[in-house]
């Protein structure tokens, strides 16, 4: 694994910085010689997760996100750390048309895409407040639905 296959980035919580996060994920995934389907899945999932933190976690207040991407065995693992109020996106329910609008939670579209694009989607509270989200995508060239 060359050095570019492990990268770290800390950015302010601003949707204008999402492109920097996507660039980092692409750089690491290409250094890992990940197939295009894998790269696309990972970029999508990390963008959705970071967007949720910025838009719904910090909710316009100043903050930061730290992104770490690295190769672990045959998986690319991306960790997003923030100090927004603790929120576990992994428990957001799958889309259910029977739920009345007033009971629906925001962010469902992004989480739906994260689930489909990753092999692992884990949350744990950050010890000093905030969240640590770990997204894992195998180097499998097939989309999850095709395996």
């Amino acid at each position, binding site marked *: 694994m060359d050095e570019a296959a492990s990268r770290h980035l800390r950015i302010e919580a601003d949707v204008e910085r999402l*492109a920097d996060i996507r660039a980092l994920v692409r750089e690491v995934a290409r250094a890992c010689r990940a197939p295009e389907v894998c790269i696309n899945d990972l970029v*999508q999932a990390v963008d959705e997760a970071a967007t949720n933190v910025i838009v719904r976690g910090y909710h316009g207040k100043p903050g930061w996100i730290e992104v770490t991407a690295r190769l672990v065995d045959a998986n690319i693992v991306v960790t997003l750390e923030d100090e927004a109020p603790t929120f576990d996106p992994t428990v957001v329910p799958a*889309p259910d048309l029977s739920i009345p609008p007033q009971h629906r939670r925001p962010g469902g579209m992004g989480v739906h895409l994260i689930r489909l694009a990753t092999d692992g989607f884990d949350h744990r509270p950050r010890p000093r407040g905030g969240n640590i989200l770990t997204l894992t995508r195998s180097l499998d060239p097939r989309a999850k639905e095709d395996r």
Partner: protein
Amino acid sequence: MAMQTTMDRAEGRVPITIMGLTGELDASNFQQLIDDVSRLYDEGVRHLLIDLTELSFMASSGLVALHGVLRVMHGEAPPDPEAGWEAFHAIGRAVQDGSTQSEVQLCGAQPAIAQVLQRTGLDQLFPSHVDRATAIAAF
């Protein structure tokens, strides 16, 4: 991340406005797409082709924008940008209703974007074509 748009006109069976998107469509710029289409609708545009050939990434906020574009082109208010979940369910209801529309069509979606459309059901709401010529013939 800037997203550029280009505008063209074509004559099929109806006058068609073609909006080409270049770059990446994400939470930083999705409102721009809804605003641009709102202006077009106010100017009298009623048939819109969105060319995705040069679009390399579409986040879920881009899907909300597409859904908003559809509402605008049907003379409805665009959805609340914060209501991602509601937009998702509205899309689901429209698909369940078997709603079909031809006022807004897509062309040139790259595989990653076609997959996002498919994974969220939007592919069932928007007629999608390989290229502009095929799309123009379909209006």
